[in-house]
């Protein structure tokens, strides 16, 4: 009964789609926390901002979903770079507690601002017709948007891996993280590098906020509500590892889906229990280097 092709496929697809949302948002967090060594708890706030930009731009300017995502990526990246230059950069050498307090404070500023200027209610996202309904995959029919998310998620993962491992910019980032002083003395402009990396990470968060709104909703509490999930993914995957975040998202997404379906009485317990078990087994995360 449980092991029909239909059943297994629908669980895998549903779980992977949920995992991809986690991946797209969390990969930016992994970049800022892992590569720059900054405990950025405002990452969820940037994802939320991105989601809001997508919804508002679609509603007021009438642009399509894809263009709205692009606008959101660029705007959020630009806004976050201003924050990085003005505020974050002052705290790079500060202790983790200072960084945590500062970024949590920033979350509250975002929450309050969106409540005042947009309103406390959930912002519905209208998907284009092509992404709604069911898609016939031959073997079974499945929710079109889930399949779209999986395709986009995998494409982003491959693109990011290529960018970090195979391009000059990626090499500069890795060099700066391994040995900042050496990288600086080789003529790499660290300030600029960090600003761009931070902007990129926040832009990814914005993409995740927009793409994930169908599942996660969008209201001013978003910034804190889902932060725990993003942090879990990053710590399970291992700081700074793109492959790690990818696999951690997939594992958590699929297992959470399957367990919720067959043991709904467990509620949201699973994702936490899973994280604890995985971290007991490998404290540095699946793909992290041992400290």
């Amino acid at each position, binding site marked *: 009964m449980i092991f029909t092709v239909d059943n297994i496929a629908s669980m895998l697809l549903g779980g992977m789609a949920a995992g991809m949302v986690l991946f797209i948002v969390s990969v930016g967090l992994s970049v800022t926390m892992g590569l720059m060594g900054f405990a950025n708890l405002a990452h969820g706030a940037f994802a939320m901002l991105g989601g809001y930009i997508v919804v508002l731009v679609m509603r007021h300017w009438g642009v399509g979903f894809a263009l709205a995502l692009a606008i959101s990526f660029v705007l959020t990246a630009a806004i976050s770079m201003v924050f990085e230059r003005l505020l974050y950069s002052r705290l790079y050498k500060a202790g983790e507690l200072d960084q945590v307090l500062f970024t949590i404070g920033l979350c509250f500023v975002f929450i309050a601002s969106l409540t005042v200027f947009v309103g406390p209610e*959930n912002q519905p996202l209208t998907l284009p017709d092509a992404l709604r309904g069911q898609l016939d995959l031959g073997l079974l029919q499945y929710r079109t948007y889930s399949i779209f998310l999986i395709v986009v998620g995998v494409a982003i993962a491959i693109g990011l891996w290529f960018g970090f491992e195979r391009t000059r910019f990626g090499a500069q980032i890795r060099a700066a993280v391994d040995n900042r002083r050496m990288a600086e003395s080789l003529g790499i402009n660290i300030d600029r590098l960090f600003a761009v990396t931070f902007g990129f990470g926040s832009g990814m968060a914005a993409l995740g906020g927009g793409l994930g709104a169908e599942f996660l909703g969008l209201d001013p509490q978003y910034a804190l*509500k889902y932060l725990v999930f993003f942090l879990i993914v990053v710590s399970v995957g291992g700081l700074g590892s793109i492959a790690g975040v990818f696999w951690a998202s997939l594992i958590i997404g699929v297992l959470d889906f399957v367990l919720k*379906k067959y043991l709904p009485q467990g509620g949201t317990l699973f994702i936490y229990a899973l994280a604890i078990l995985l971290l007991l087994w490998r404290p540095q995360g699946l793909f992290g280097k041992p400290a």
Partner: protein
Amino acid sequence: MLKRILAASAALAVSTALAGAQEVKVGVVLPYTGIGAEFAQLIDRGMEMYLKLNADKVKPYQIKLIKRDAKNPGGNDARVATQELLTQEKVDVLAGWVYSPNAIASAPVVNAGKKFAVIMNAGTAHITQMSGYYARTSFSMWHAGYAMGEAAAKQLKAKTAVVGYTDFPPGKDSLNAFKRAFEASGGKVIDEIPMGGAGAVPDFTPFFQRAKDKKPDVFFVFVPAGDHAAAVTRTYGALGMRQAGIRLIGPGDITQDTKLQAMGDAAIGLITMHHYHADLPNAENKRFVAEWKKAYGANAVPDFMAVGGYDGMALIMHVAHQLKGKIDGDAAIKAAGTFKFNSPRGPISIDPDTRDIVMNEYLSEVVKGPDGRLMQKVIGQIDNVKDACKAQKIAPCK
């Protein structure tokens, strides 16, 4: 100039005299921040709307609303807020409570404070029995849940049902109410799925996938109104459950008026049992909705929470008049039992035995209106429904 100053100070003196003599202080406990912030706004506006539309009935009293933030469904902050209103603000009447856990946690404080307290939303059936000072102008989960269980078996001719519910007190209440009535009418509940908590909206896909696999005739869902409800309809549509022959039914929380338009065509055909929606055709409601749009914008729409606040304020004014402004807790509860009111939801009264509301329930279907907007069409009506949990003395409503 001098004349104007004199006139102004005279007016001020008169108004302070008025305020001093006939002010009624109402302490309001609502989640002004957090996930329930928009519910707080709706109930707030419902109360304001009553004071505005019925200014002649409010005179000679002056209502002063003192608002405190209940923050979240956890209960603790609501209890502290209630306590502060009683001890520091010395309010005459308490009102509010969106979430059941908050009203449950506040009950001992309400009891100790001995002040009249009007519940404007929280719907778990037995809450009103936790304090003798509680009266309720919203609903009990059993009002809609029990009536829907009967209607599902008799009118919708369903034989099997799956119940999905948000795992907190009103969710379990709704499950029990529906199940008891549905099975008493010959149906069978073949699966019960707890679907996460009230604090955050989960991804409903795994739960709905499970329900779909069971192939029931109807899928009865209780989730809190608001974001949860919007996600339910979306997931139902996206998983193709309608095409699989499964009807989505529930209390009116899943078709909350403020969320209906955003649900899109996936909502068409949804069937709910509830005591209010903005499309009710009675004259009182038409006036209420028109005034609401005038005050809060053409796209604004009141919903059952707004009406809970509106009717709650009507009850408070009734009690104030009966007691000539001296609102003693015990006398107020007695006076509440004589409350009868023509509400936008139809005629309502307070049952003197249970202090809970007696009202009509409407079976409605979501259809596309002539103007292309989604609307709810009444397809059945049950008059003067009492809370079935208390009427039948089902535990914990002894």
